Structures are given as C-alpha cells and as structure tokens.
C-alpha cells in the first residue's frame, strides 16, 4: 500500500480547519502530540504537522479564458496550499537519520519517527524540502504528520471515520485519503484525472501526496464581429453621443 492524501488546490479555501483538527487529534494522541509554546502569550508558537500558506499567482495566461493575461493586465489567482508530510517514496529524511528513529513503513509507506530512538539532531528536518518535520522542544524529539496512523486502522471507529483527522474536518472536501497503489482508489483516480503539481520534483523525493492541479478555464474562441451597415450607424451615433 502507498497511503497518502490528495489535496485539491481548486477547492481549498484556506480555512485552516485541517490544521486545527490535526492539532486537536494529535495533541491528545498516543504519538505524544504536537506541543504549543506560549500559546496565549506574546509570541505564540509550536509544532504543527500541517501548515497552510496562501500564494498569489499572476500573469499565467493559461488561467485566463481568453489567454489575455500579460504583465500589464495581471490575472491574479489565489491558491491555498496546505502542507504536511508527503510520505515520499524516496524519503531522504529516513536515509540521513543516524539513529534509525525515522522510518518508512514497508506495509503502507507511512513515514514515522520513533520518539524512543530520536536524539533531536534536526538532521531529518534539514533533509526535508517541504518543511514537514518540526522539533518538539519540550520532549526534544522530532515530530511530524503520522497520517493519523492511530485513526486509520482503528477497528473501534465506524468505517467512514477511519481517515486522517484533516480529511474528515475539511469543509470543502478538498482533502482525500486513499491508497495510491490501487489504481481504482479515489485518490489514484483524482490524481490521474486532474494531474499532480510537480513540487520540487527535481530533488527526486517522489512525494506520494498529490496536489491536484487547478482546473484551467475552457478556452473560448472569439467570435468575429459582424459589421453590417446598421452596426456602423450605431457606432457612429455612439461616438456622436460621447463627443
């Protein structure tokens, strides 16, 4: 199995509900939780397994129905990008770990940290291009998204709830969870149909999570204007009025 998420960049509204749900679930979980530092003080900070950033894209004509975007006429598009661990196939964070605390499970491809072995050297965070790993300063061990490994296999939960907390919380259904090894799974189908954003693919980490590309507007062919005698007369009158 290659478990992972599919995140729809078209429908994500950037509400941070996934991050809050993640924080809530993992704050109470067996994996030790994501700590907060100074949460109600002047400098609130903490470890989050999921962070949402908002970007603006301008000047890409493929997002304009008439292909008209230029630098003079910017077509601005806002994209919300939630980022958590991609559970990469070539997870370099696991390779560089000197203690063996970071590991990738053979059975489902989830990348996890064993807090009983981690020595908090931050080397895996250096190796991660996506900023998925954050140090728990209270316990001195590295923390990261577990793909809610303590939820998805929990037989006590109803079947529909055996999904990561972020997926269940998303109000716009921008997040999907499934097995990328199975071509018939919802995430495989979505990734095939919509295409994946190639995020730092040159590094060769082969992320499993897919960011579904934004849909392009249908390109409309401009209909040539028919310029009959009456149109010319109207145009002449309009110009007269505007004098």
């Amino acid at each position: 199995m290659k478990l992972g998420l599919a995140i729809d960049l078209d429908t994500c509204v950037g509400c941070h509900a996934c991050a809050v749900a993640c924080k809530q679930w993992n704050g109470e979980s067996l994996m030790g939780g994501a700590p907060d530092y100074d949460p109600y003080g002047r400098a609130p900070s903490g470890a989050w397994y999921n962070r949402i950033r908002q970007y603006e894209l301008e000047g890409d004509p493929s997002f304009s129905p008439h292909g008209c975007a230029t630098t003079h006429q910017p077509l601005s598009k806002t994209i919300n990008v939630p980022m958590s661990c991609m559970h990469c196939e070539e997870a370099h964070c696991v390779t560089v770990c000197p203690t063996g605390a970071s590991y990738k499970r053979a059975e489902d491809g989830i990348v996890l940290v064993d807090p009983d072995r981690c020595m908090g050297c931050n080397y895996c965070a250096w190796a991660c291009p996506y900023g998925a790993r954050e140090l728990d300063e209270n316990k001195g061990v590295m923390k990261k998204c577990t793909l809610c490994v303590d939820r998805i296999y929990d037989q006590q939960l109803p079947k529909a709830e055996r999904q990561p907390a972020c997926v269940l919380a998303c109000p716009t259904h921008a997040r999907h969870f499934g097995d990328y090894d199975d071509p018939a799974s919802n995430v495989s189908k979505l990734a095939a149909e919509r295409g994946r954003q190639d995020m730092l693919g040159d590094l060769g980490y082969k992320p499993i999570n897919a960011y579904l590309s934004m849909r392009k507007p249908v390109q409309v062919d401009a209909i040539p204007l028919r310029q009959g005698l009456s149109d010319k007369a109207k145009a002449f009158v309009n110009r007269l009025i505007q004098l």
Partner: protein
Amino acid sequence: MKPAFSVIFFTVASGAGLGLMIWLLVASMMSAHIRMPQTTFITGAIVAGLLITAGLCSSTLHLANRKNAIYSLTRFKTSWLSREGVFALALYPAAALHIWLLSSGASIAMLKLTSIILIVLALLILFCTGMIYACLKTIPRWNTWHTPTKYVLFGLMSGAVLFIAVLSARPAEIGAMGRPWVAIFLLLAGLILYVAYLLNHPRKTYTVNDALGLKRGNVRLLDVGHAHGTFLTNEFGFQLARERARVLRWIAIVLGFVLPLILMFFNSMPPFAAAVSCIAGLLVERWLFFAEAEHVVRLYHGQQRV
C-alpha cells in the same frame, strides 16, 4: 541556516585537531628527515586530543535529546552522520593502541601500521563531516563537491599551521627550521579553493515556481499562515545582510589564509600567532558556511529563489 555555535566550533576544532594529528603522525613516520623530540610529539598529541574531544563534545550540545545519542551509531550503511560518529569513536581505541605500542617500544613496522590506520581514520572523519552537509539536496549551496573538499583541505591546512606552532614552541630542541613549505602550500591551496568558491560557485537553483509546480507566471506569498516564528523559520530562516557577509568574507580570507601565509613565510613571528589567526578565520568561514546556506523550504516562506 541558523549558524549554531556548537556545530561551528565542532567542525573547526576537530578539523584542526585531526589535521594536527595527521601531521604529527606523518612527521613521526619521517623521523629520518624531521627532527621531533618526544616532548614535542606528546605536547602536539595532547593539543590534538583536546581539540578533537572538545569538538566532539560540542557537537552533542545541539542535540535536543542527548540520552538517545548512542543510537546514532546504528545506521552506518545509510547515514553520513552515523558514519562520522562511528569513525570518530573508532579513533580513540586506535589512538590508545598507538600510544601503548609507543610506550612499550614496539617495532617500527607496527607503529607505522597504527599510524596509517589513524591517518586514514582522521581523513575519513573529515570527509564524512563534509558529506553530512554535501549530501543534502535541499540545500543547493552545500550539495556540491566543494563541501567535502573544503572540510578535508581546511582540516589538513589548519592542522599543518598548528603543527608548525607546536614544533616551534621549543625552538632550542628543534634547531633551525626551514620554511614550512607544507603549511604554506596548504594555505595557498585553501586560499585558492575559498576565493574560487566565492567568485564562482556552480550549483542548482530553485525558484518559488518550482516549489509549487506553477511553471508560468509570478508567484508570491500572500500569507505565511503563522502569527509568530516557527521551528522552520527559526532553523532555516536566518537572514544575513549582504554588506555584513561581504565584510565577514574579507575577515575570513585575511585571518584564515592571508595572514597565516605571511606569518609562515617570514617565520620570525611568535609561533602561535599564525595558528590563532588561522583558526579564528576558519571560525568566521564556518559561520558564513551556515549563515549563507539557503534551504529550499524558504521558497514556501516567501523567498523567490534559493
């Protein structure tokens, strides 16, 4: 990257200590050509041992969970950090064996063998330290052949300068010394490598477009999603003012290479001046090595290019 002093001190101090150890062993193997009294060798060995040990102890200071550090020797097959730890720990029994052979008056052949083992181990540690940084594809400035070359060469270089300082500490026993050509040659090589690196450093670059897979158009950050600093901004967000970097580079060039070169060439100066200057320069150089490195995660935090 955040320039953590513990790691900067570790790389410079154990680099210089390992270099000093290498040159002491080379000199003791060439006893027909280099006159080195026993006391000088012992002084040098103590200095080297102290530098290496202080560096290694310092390297554990940045660990957030030191009690699990012992596990760091278990991933020799995959992790350069693990390899470095294993070689560094192997150095101590090898050095103890060498000292025991020395004191029990073993044959020259045995001493040569342990010397060569120690030299190879020291070179391996220097190379592994370089590869810890060079293997990270996420930091394009480090991910070049320059990094391991620099760690090995600068280690040998600062070791050679220290070795001359140790030799000339007791001028009466050594007698007249010629120009220390090995140290001069290594300083020149180091100077050329560092200046060439500053002038032109071919590396991969990544843009914010690569980071988000949006190949066309301009992308800019609207909202970073956190109110205060995070682990990521703290660890990777270090900003170095260009003017300050320029000044520090000149300090590194002058203190680390040019001044020791001059002092070595006209070897009439106090013996430790060149070594102190070289190590101070290398500390500045190593600080810059970390402060100037840009991690690709900065692209997600609003930087346009790394």
